[in-house]
């Protein structure tokens, strides 16, 4: 189904919301107002937004820490994000874990862990359940090009291919696995080159083009839903900040950053919308004002929430 003008504006809005939330989080972290480290998706917002927007509400995502946009598209409110980042008692992890590890099966979100490739087999298992129950649902997981070097990646993709489960595998190749560039992670030209070796379709897309990501995921999800099994999608993008807020990333060449800065995914979508007559300066000003207010309110609401109590440490190890 082609994107409507509304959809196209929504994609842009979600990317802008993601950037606004993460800009605010970056500032809060610098002021010591967050718990734990901060990892953001600056520069690669098009992938989580485009991917999640291509799914249905009853599909399940197993996102990673650079997928703020996926959470927002799934309905996680900015106040929930800030509460999570602040480790508040009423947050998803209630202060027991930190970062973007929000999990909520009611909204189809598997909470990630810091061992990033572990979400791959879990997503395969979610998809396996859908297949066994003959439900027309899809699981989607995302991972970096660095995580693709692990054994868990291989085991999961191979198992997904053999079992032909409805899973969409989104690689966000952002050029840096902490400080390690792709040529030190794999010897092929691209991650997507592996798809034929697993016997599954693979496609490489411009990860800074939200509509291209959306189209690729929509096609892969439709194939999965129809029984066609998994697809590997490699989205090329660039990590525009350090690995985490404490990483100055001085190993990244300036020219690489400059080249990608000229291809900012938000600016790209704004230009596409403007060229189609769907966007103008007045809309932009209104959107930015709205997002600023929304984010400010969310930060204040989150800060007003209760911190965990020492006794909470004991609760929830086991389900009753």
């Amino acid at each position, binding site marked *: 189904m082609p994107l409507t003008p509304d959809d196209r504006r929504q994609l842009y809005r979600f990317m802008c919301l993601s950037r606004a939330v993460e800009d605010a989080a970056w500032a809060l972290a610098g002021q010591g107002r967050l718990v734990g480290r901060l990892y953001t998706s600056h520069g690669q917002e098009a992938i989580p937004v485009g991917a999640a927007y291509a799914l249905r509400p009853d599909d399940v995502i197993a996102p990673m820490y650079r997928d703020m946009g996926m959470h927002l598209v799934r309905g996680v409110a900015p106040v929930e994000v800030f509460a999570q980042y602040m480790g508040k008692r009423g947050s998803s992890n209630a202060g027991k874990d930190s970062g973007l*590890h929000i999990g909520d099966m009611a909204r189809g979100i598997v909470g990630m862990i*810091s061992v990033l490739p572990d979400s791959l087999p879990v997503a395969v*298992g979610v998809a396996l359940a859908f297949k*066994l129950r003959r439900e027309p649902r899809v699981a989607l997981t995302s991972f970096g090009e660095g995580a693709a070097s692990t054994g*868990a990646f291989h085991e999961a993709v*191979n198992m997904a291919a053999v079992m032909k489960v409805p899973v969409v595998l989104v690689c966000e190749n952002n050029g840096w696995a902490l400080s390690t560039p792709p040529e030190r992670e794999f010897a092929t030209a691209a991650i997507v080159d592996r798809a034929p070796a697993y016997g599954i379709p693979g496609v490489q897309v411009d990860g800074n083009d939200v509509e291209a990501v959306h189209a690729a995921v929509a096609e892969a999800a439709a194939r999965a839903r129809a029984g066609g099994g998994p697809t590997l999608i490699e989205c090329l993008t660039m990590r525009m900040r350090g690995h985490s807020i404490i990483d100055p990333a001085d190993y990244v060449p300036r020219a690489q950053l400059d080249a990608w800065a000229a291809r900012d995914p938000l600016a790209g979508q704004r230009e596409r919308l403007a060229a189609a007559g769907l966007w103008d300066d007045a809309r932009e000003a209104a959107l930015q004002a709205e997002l600023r207010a929304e984010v400010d309110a969310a930060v204040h609401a989150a800060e007003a929430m209760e911190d965990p109590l020492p006794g909470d440490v004991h609760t*929830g*190890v086991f*389900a009753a």
Partner: protein
Amino acid sequence: MSTGSAMRTLTYHEAVREALWQAMEADPAVFLMGEDIAAYGGVYKVTAGFVDRFGADRVIDTPIAENAIIGAATGAALVGMRPIAEIQFADFIACGLDPLVNMTSTIHYRWGQPVPLVVRAPAGATWASAGPFHSQSPEAWFAQIPGLKVVMPATPADAKGLLTAAIRDPNPVIVLEQKYLYRRLSGPVPEGEHVVPLGRAAVARPGRDATVVAWGSMAFKALEAARMLADGDGIDVEVVDLRTIVPWDRDAVLASVARTGRAVVVYEAHRTAGFGAEVAATIAEDGFADLDAPVVRLAGLDTPIPAHPVLEAAYLPDEHAIADALRRLVAY
């Protein structure tokens, strides 16, 4: 708790099969996944015939991929299934330890989602030269993972009842089936529903003079030692079968030690930092006033488990070693 059904004599192996079969019959969300479990029936034939009855959708042969088996079973559990993953040998779970340690067992603590997942793994030495990679008893690894329950049945009735409880539990549970006992041990097993609650030890044999705390096949060996001592030495030994390692039944162990005043903790895993060290430390800490002698540990050596029968026997505690330890303890 059983529904008053008839008792039959089953082997440990048949009891495991019956628990799985009845769970598959009762709940369509239950399914099996693992290596060589469908047409081949598993290397120990625990699931032989299951695929014919329940179909390939519910008895799933997987690639050799322990990480993905446990990870995928976790994913299925998150969306309403009740997966039972078989790891071919407990030793091989090292290949799948990461998701169990980092993902599966932390989910409920981190974001409140139950993960009703059972991992079955044949464990322990066989006294049949299985060697370093098919003999390990890794319960202490799992006891260090908060959020994971650990079960080690020592009788056919418990093999059925504990596995049934594990399948119904809303948490990840690893069941370390004792392959030494699969076809060696028979006993009465209720025919119908039979659930043994997790976390409760059993006094497998009451006695006055000393307590043996053991689990898995060492509980079986401890009972043999107790019989030898009763017949030959007039020593009356109480055997406490722990049955569940996590959560473990401190109260039952301390109550037994209070009755006897003496305790030997027997386990076939490596002695140092084995789970028996935790049991012994707890008795020393919380049962000190009841003790008439130091707590003794009897365990496997701090070596890999060797293959040759001479070496394997030198590694493993047996009924004679247990009996000797008890004689010394009673004479203390």
